[in-house]
């Protein structure tokens, strides 16, 4: 099988800080990681390759630094890595991003053959939009299978696939055709620890780097800020509420006294709630 995996290098959101004084994002020193949701697709891709043979190509669009994440993907066992990087892509929204990535996938297909599956992350942890995967699928006419919790059956030679897909009230079992764009649910698998051979290979492997022209993108009007229909007009810190919390129980003798003070305060502010809770408790 030929599988492409789209990944994104994201700041480790746990370590992002807002400057206490200027309220701006402090990016300095924030480590970057592969978007965690992408790893479920990568692992699924590696498993399919191990089962059916073929190769896994990881790709991303981003600054030159993003090659670190691609190299990391190679240490997990991916066979090839491609980075699409160009200043024309700066400021891309999801529509412009899916345009660039769809073109990247086209170009990669010309070089290494058409993929059976393109895996994307369910969403990223920095953007949280969940729009780029569907955008790519739409642009390339791939079957769209999002929120997949497992691939039950797959037959590359006949181009058929059966998956379980997480829906709002249950699980859909879907039968469909390849080529498909799949996003995997978190927890559907666990990224492997690559073998020492993978680590060594990744350390000296070449990450293929393309700029817009090399990826065959000539219409720069679809790229970056110019190609983004959405415009960010304002970025701001959430307004702090005028009033801070009223502190309860200061100087109280023991936890029980604090608890009683607190309950009195709660019901003073929510008088109807007490009766409702009572009824609820009576039903128990």
């Amino acid at each position, binding site marked *: 099988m030929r599988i492409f995996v789209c990944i994104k290098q994201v700041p480790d959101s746990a370590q992002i800080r807002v400057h206490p004084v200027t309220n701006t994002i402090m990016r300095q020193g924030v480590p970057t990681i592969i978007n965690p949701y992408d790893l479920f697709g990568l692992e699924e891709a590696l498993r399919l390759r191990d089962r059916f043979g073929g190769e896994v190509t990881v790709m991303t669009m981003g600054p030159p630094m993003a090659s670190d994440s691609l190299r990391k993907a190679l240490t997990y066992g991916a066979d090839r890595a491609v980075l699409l990087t160009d200043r024309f892509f700066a400021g891309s*929204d999801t529509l412009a991003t899916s345009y660039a990535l769809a073109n990247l996938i*086209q170009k990669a297909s010309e070089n290494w053959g058409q993929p059976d599956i393109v895996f994307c992350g369910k969403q990223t942890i920095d953007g*949280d939009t969940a729009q780029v995967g*569907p955008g790519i699928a739409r642009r390339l006419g791939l079957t769209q299978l*999002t929120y997949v919790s497992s691939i039950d059956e797959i037959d590359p030679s006949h181009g058929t696939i059966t998956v379980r897909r997480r829906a709002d009230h249950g699980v859909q079992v879907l039968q469909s055709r390849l080529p498909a764009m799949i996003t995997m649910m978190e927890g559907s698998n666990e990224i492997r620890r690559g073998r020492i051979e993978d680590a060594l290979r990744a350390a000296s492997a070449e990450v293929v780097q393309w700029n817009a022209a090399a990826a065959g993108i000539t219409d720069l*009007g679809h790229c970056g800020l110019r190609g983004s229909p959405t415009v960010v007009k304002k970025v701001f810190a959430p307004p702090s509420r005028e009033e801070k919390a009223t502190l309860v129980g200061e100087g109280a003798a023991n*936890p029980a006294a604090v608890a009683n003070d*607190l309950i009195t305060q709660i019901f003073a502010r929510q008088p109807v709630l007490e009766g409702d*809770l009572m009824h*609820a408790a009576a039903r128990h």
Partner: protein
Amino acid sequence: MNSSAPRPPAAAGSRAGMKKELPEHFRSYKHVWVFIEFEQGEIHPVSLELLGEGRKLADRLQVELAGVLLGGCGAALTGAAGICHSYGADVVYVAAHPVLADYRNEPYTRVMTDLVRKFEPEIMLLGATVLGRDLAGSVATTLQTGLTADCTELAIDDERSLAATRPTFGGSLLCTIHTLNFRPQMATVRPRVMPLPAPDTSRTGRIIEYQAELEESDIVTKVIDFLADRNSESSQLAFADVVVAGGLGLRSAENISLVQDLAHVLGGDWGGSRPLVQKGWIPSDRQIGQTGKTIRPRLYIAAGISGAIQHRVGVEGSDLIVAINTDPNAPIFEFAHLGVVGDATVLLPALTEAFRSRLAVNRLAG
């Protein structure tokens, strides 16, 4: 890859990104649409919440609010349309077709984009549910227009443009996004972010039926089974009247039970902050916050949660927020209404006991 990929409409040809002027061909786009999620014979609450929000936008713009209903059975859809009217829709577009019986990306995308091209709405809102997210990206890409995900606030600016505000940078900041020169302006909103409006059953409206031209044989993906969630024990979290949640201040996985005990006594539901999910102390469907569940209970008790912004945006709609934290400078005290500076593992059992006896006394008295 097959070559039948949809071509972008010629209308979206010129892409002078920052130009503010709305191109001539989009000037005819009017009205606010809400995609109504209708599955297993029920309207998803988020769609009704969006009707409430869409009503405000439509009034501000002095245009109509429309619901868009897709499904397999005409009769059921007509019933659902009535509900949409009572929640504020002036018009409901109904597309009934056997192919639309179960949600599938392909036919739904096709019908939605056809509807937009035919009736030209200026704003389209969808719930940021699994279904809504699956659909929104496909529709926006096909229409080549802007889509803003997970909005926490929607407004109309002085130039009649939709100002969609959403958290950014992992929830530490907010940003306001506009789609200046493309239509429709699309946005998704998570469940429970907007309040559920009160229905007015006396309200009526129009229904516009749309004959979708679909052939089952054209649709590649088949639903061969649906396994409904039998165990939906956590699905009530977003709708609970009382929610108790724990954070790292609980210090150990065992102390989750302190949160559960209090929730139980109050007849409410329980959850936790993102770090607890990351540590594996609680399942991910119990996570409260921007990337987890948004809650709007009447009483929210946060025990040992510091109150990072990503948590804050998920709980701000609560009527009364009570925070327990050892650190008096914890950000949660900035937006909680009542606070106790103290150890949650000590306070929680005391609260449980005090609530239990108080409610018992009242019951006897009552």
